[in-house]
């Protein structure tokens, strides 16, 4: 299977790869997928004043899964929490030219974004 140039670029030069400390107050973490299915994504956001100031990812999965999560971190940075909710898997499919068999990678990335946002929301609510 031939990969799109953008997938190859994200694979070779992953953006924002790494981890934040999970227990920090301003960090939201989402882990989705399962090793048995061949992909697990961890997506993290760092939030200040309702705005995502930084993001990190780590992914176990195929090239498209890695590219989808790398792209997601790029898109998350600078967005408000509300704007981040609007990111759709179809946007990722379009940007990376993912073929039909790789659509589940983009779905997983959207799930990871949602999970990270929820985790942050839960943390801040617990604080109140």
């Amino acid at each position: 299977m031939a990969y799109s140039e953008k997938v190859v670029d994200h694979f070779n030069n992953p953006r924002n790869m790494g981890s934040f400390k999970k227990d920090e107050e301003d960090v939201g973490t989402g882990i989705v997928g399962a090793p048995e299915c061949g992909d697990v994504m961890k997506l993290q956001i760092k939030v200040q004043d309702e705005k995502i100031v930084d993001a990190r990812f780590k992914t176990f999965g195929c090239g498209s899964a890695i590219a989808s999560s790398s792209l997601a971190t790029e898109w998350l940075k600078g967005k408000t929490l509300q704007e981040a909710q609007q990111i759709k898997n179809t946007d990722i499919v379009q940007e990376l030219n993912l073929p039909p068999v790789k659509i589940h990678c983009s779905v997983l990335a959207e799930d990871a974004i949602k999970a990270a946002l929820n985790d942050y929301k839960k943390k801040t609510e617990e604080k109140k």
Partner: protein
Amino acid sequence: MKFPIFLDNHSTTPMDQRVLDVMLPYFVEKFGNAASRNHPFGWEAEEAVERARQQIAHLIHADAKEIVFTSGATESDNLALKGVMDMYREKGDHLITSLTEHRAVLDTAKTLESKRGIKVTYLPVDKYGMVNPDDVRNAITDKTVLISIMLANNEIGTINPIKEIGKIAKEKGILFHCDATQGVGKIPVDVQEMGIDLMSFSAHKIYGPKGVGALYVRKKGPRVRLTPIIDGGGHERGMRSGTLPVPLIVGFGKACELCEQEMPAESVRLATMRDRLKDGIMTKLDEVYLNGHPTQRLPHNLNISFAYVEGESLLMGVKEIALSSGSACTSATLEPSYVLRALGVGSDLAHSSIRFGLGRFNTNEEVDYTATRIIEIVTKLREMSPLYEMAKDGIDLKTVQWSAH
């Protein structure tokens, strides 16, 4: 070094120049139909086919008359299973095979089940991928017509105890088919000693041309009969009609002759190179697991799972090396390798498996380069892997509640 490096010799092999050389005259100059009995064009073609038949038969210790030419091993498997189960229908309706067979056998067995009412037993394998002869014995009923067990597995290279299975088949008077596609030309095969009644193999796995294969069909003790699946001019003793592809057959013959001559030295060279690759990788990386049998395996096969790294991404990271993975992402089915699953390898490690298939034209230099690159990319992808991070933090991944999707 020339790039890309080809380390996928289980899928196919490059043709040997010496094979091509003997084939060339049979395209334009000596184009006759081997079935033309009345003129020198036909005689010349027939002579070439019969010479090739000898070369092929010699490699497997058979008689030339026992070689039936087909389009390849898939057709041979189909012909053996469908042909025998149909011909001996009055004797019984039971077929024994194993879970790790090639799809050409498994899917044929499934068709026989669903379309012809044949009962099929799929034997399990041990953790190395080996069939237990006792399981074969215990699965036999008075309705069993055929046992079909592969010589060596195409993914993990494990070699089955064929001789023992052949003995059981003889003892019980049941026919024994062996898919030997990965083994012929690589390891010694003797249909007499191994008690094989039918055997599938093909040319393109042994540095010959694509598009031709053979089914060995025993003529004596017992004389095996089968119903053809292709009807027509009655070629190949009526078992496989169709004009013989003379140039391909000539190439197939030469490929077998070369394998026979070179096997003693070549198998040692390949096994040494394979171990060099294995040691090069396994001494430098932790949590890598060998799939298949440690010793009873094809000399040119290496199959390794790299924990916490997904196979397709690994292949993507070493694009200049042609390899294959058991990861679901590299298959059309979205399921990881059924062969590794049958061994009891977890889905996670099946997704992380890479198959290295060495061949006649690989060099130590290529092997060393490959080991270095694999170590590099696995290290890089583990840095990127949340699973590796969790494992390093002491989290037991088996206790995590994953969200399956």
